[in-house]
C-alpha cells in the first residue's frame, strides 16, 4: 500500500497508506483527512477534491483529461499544477506522493 502525504494549506501534514486502485480523494476521505471534500463522490462533477501537485510528481501522473481541466475552471484558486484528486488513481508508482491542498474547497 503506497504512502500518500496530504499537506493542508496551513502546513499540517498527514501521511497514510492508501490501497492501490483507490483515488487520492478516496484516500483522504476514508482517513478523515481535512481539506478534501469530494462532494460529488468522485464523478468529476464538482471541484471539491482539488489539490496542487509539485512538478516532479505532477509529471509522473497520468495527464488530465479535458473534462478534468473543465472542472478545474470551477475550483478555488486553480493553478498550473492543479488536479482533481478523484482522478488520480493510486498505484505502486505513486509511493511517496505528496499533494498540497488549497486554502479551501468551496
Amino acid at each position, binding site marked *: 500500500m503506497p504512502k500518500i502525504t496530504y499537506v493542508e494549506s496551513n502546513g499540517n501534514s498527514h501521511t497514510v497508506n492508501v490501497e492501490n486502485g483507490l483515488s487520492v480523494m478516496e484516500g483522504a476521505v476514508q482517513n478523515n483527512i481535512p481539506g478534501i*471534500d469530494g462532494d460529488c463522490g468522485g464523478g468529476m462533477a*464538482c471541484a471539491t477534491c482539488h489539490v496542487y501537485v509539485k512538478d516532479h510528481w505532477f509529471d509522473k501522473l497520468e495527464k488530465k483529461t479535458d473534462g478534468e*481541466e*473543465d472542472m478545474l*475552471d*470551477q475550483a478555488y484558486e486553480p493553478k498550473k499544477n492543479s488536479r482533481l484528486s478523484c482522478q488520480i488513481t493510486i498505484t505502486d508508482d505513486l509511493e511517496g506522493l505528496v499533494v498540497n491542498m488549497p486554502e479551501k474547497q*468551496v
Partner: protein
Amino acid sequence: MIKTDALIIGAGPTGLFTAHQLKIIGLSCEIVDNLDKVGGQCIELYPDKPIYDIPAIPECTGEELTNNLLNQLKPFDIGFHLGERVDELKKTNNEWEVKTNKGKIFLTPNVIIAGGVGSFEPRKFVPKECEKYEDKSLFYSVKNKKIFDGKTVSIFGGGDSALDWAVELSKNCKVNLIHRREEFRGAKSTVNKIYELQKDGKINLFTKYQLKSVTGNGKIDCIEIQSEDQKVESIKTDYVLGFFGLIMQLGPIANWGLNLDKKTVEVDTEKFETNQKGIYAVGDICNYPGKLKLILSGFHEGALAARACFALARPGQKYRFEFTTSSKTIRDRLGVKSD
C-alpha cells in the same frame, strides 16, 4: 402565509419521492429549492450521465430519472417554490415558521430537509476585497444587462455563461474576457464567435490570467490580473462579472440548531428525525450509522419520514398502513379508477 402538513427543502430525487410518499398517505406538501429547476444534483451536475443502480431501472440519466419522478407526481397537487432558498426556521407554538429569502412564509408541523450537499451557490472570486463590490459593480449573474451599456465590462470564466455574455455584451459595451487557460469549454460555435469578435476589436481576450486584485472607491475603477508566469496587467473597468459555475454550500441549514457532522445532519433511523422535533433530514444530507449516499437510500428515508410527519400533521388520528395495489383510498388519491 402558506399552511401545509409538510415542507420539503430540496427538489432533487429524494425530495420529489418524499413528496409522493406524503401525498400517498393523504398529507399536503410544498417544496422549496434554491435552483430554478427541479432535479437537484441529478440535473445540475450530471443530467446526461447514466445511473445504473436505481431499482428496476437498469440504466437512466439524471434527467430521465427526474422526469420520471415528476411524472409520478402528476396526480398530485404540490406547490413548487423554485429559485428560493429557505433562510430561517423558527418554532411558534408546536409549528415551524419557515421563511425564504424572497420573504415567503410557511407554517407547518413538519420540515423535511432533502438538501443533498446543501444549496448551489455561485463560485466566487478569490481576492477578499471583491465582496464589498458584490451586487454593485461585481456580479455572478446578470439581472439587467442595460446597466452595462457603454461601459467596460471584464468577464471571467471559460464556460458557456461567460462566453454567451461576452458575445451579448460586446454589442453595447467594451468587453474584456479573462480565462485561466487557453481552452474554452463553451459551445464550439460560441468560441469561434469570440475569436471573430476579438479580430474585429470588439472583445479583448486575456487567457492564462486570473483576477489578482480589485480597486475602486464604492465602485470598481480598476482590476489587476495575473498570468501563470506572474505577469501582472492592470485594466480599467466599470464592471466585473464572474462565471465559475456553482458550488454546494450547506448555507443557512447550519444555523438551525441541528446536530451536524461535517456537512451532514444527524438523524435517527426510525423517523429520520433530527435533534429537533418535526425536522427531518433525508437523502445525501442525512447521516446515521451505515448511511449510504445512494438515491435508493433517499427514497427509503423519505418514505419513513413521510409516515413520521403523519403523527404531527394529524394528531389524534392513527396512521394505517396500506398498499397502493389494494387500497381504494390511495387509488382515489392517485385518481385511478377502482374496479
